[in-house]
């Protein structure tokens, strides 16, 4: 007599964890790229306080419109200096239109790297059930 025991539930749970692990790893690549881009600050670098780089964060994976997603953003929202500089603004002090893009290029230029990080982390989770070690630059 043989007994069949389904591992489907286990596989499904591990697949979900693999997706989230992949998202976290991918997001960390973008966080790292943005932090690198923000070093030196805006314009002259006189306003570098570390606050800006420390504000770059990613959320936990979440379900949005039926898909697992993760968000990368800044905790500086009021006033939204990173937004001002990313999209450009009429600067009251310089009297000029000022812009320094960091976030968009970081995402575009590191999309392949983020995809690769996703693949590595999710594969590791599927195969071993263990998440990747922290990939943040602070962990180096």
């Amino acid at each position, binding site marked *: 007599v043989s007994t069949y025991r389904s591992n489907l539930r286990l596989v499904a749970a591990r697949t979900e964890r693999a997706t989230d692990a992949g998202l976290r790893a991918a997001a960390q690549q973008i966080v790292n790229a943005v932090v690198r881009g923000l070093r030196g600050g805006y314009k002259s670098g006189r306003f570098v306080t570390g606050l800006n780089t420390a504000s770059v964060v990613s959320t936990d994976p979440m379900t949005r419109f039926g898909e697992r997603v993760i968000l990368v953003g800044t905790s500086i929202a009021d006033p939204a200096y990173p937004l001002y500089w990313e999209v450009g603004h009429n600067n009251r002090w310089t*009297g000029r239109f000022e812009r320094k893009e960091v976030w968009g290029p970081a995402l575009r230029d590191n999309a392949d790297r983020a995809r690769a990080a996703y693949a590595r982390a999710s594969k590791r989770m599927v195969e071993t059930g263990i998440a990747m070690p922290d990939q943040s630059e602070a962990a180096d």
Partner: protein
Amino acid sequence: MATSTMAAVYRAIRLRLLTFEPLDGGLTLAERLSGGVAILTPPDDAPMPYMAIRLQNMRGSLREQGARLTAELELMAFHRPRENADDLEVLVDVADQAMRQWAYTSGGSIACVAQRRDTLPPFRDDADPEVVQVRVVYDLIIRPAFLTQYTAA
């Protein structure tokens, strides 16, 4: 030819935006924008309202023998003071109409296939709080003549 160079592509897009006549008989952007449509970055002393356009994230592939580019056209619209926020939205409405399913096909091609539009929150402190700003990103497919000339029919 409007797509013989990337600079010509910019000029074709700018001309489309400025000269498009809305179906309701309203004014063109050339008549409405005091500061016109700047390419890349607006001049520091541009009178409001004005727009600035820039192509970004341009990507080619081996599709169509390497002559097909996808790109994002970022359009940034500005007005001042803040009480003109509604007027600015109307100006961007006209731009949206101009770009809507636009397909330029006279020598190479430029086609608009999608868009995303954001009205930015009011700025303050370092940024002039009286300026209102709308950002639109149009997804374009560009087949520039300087690339299509190498493709077999």
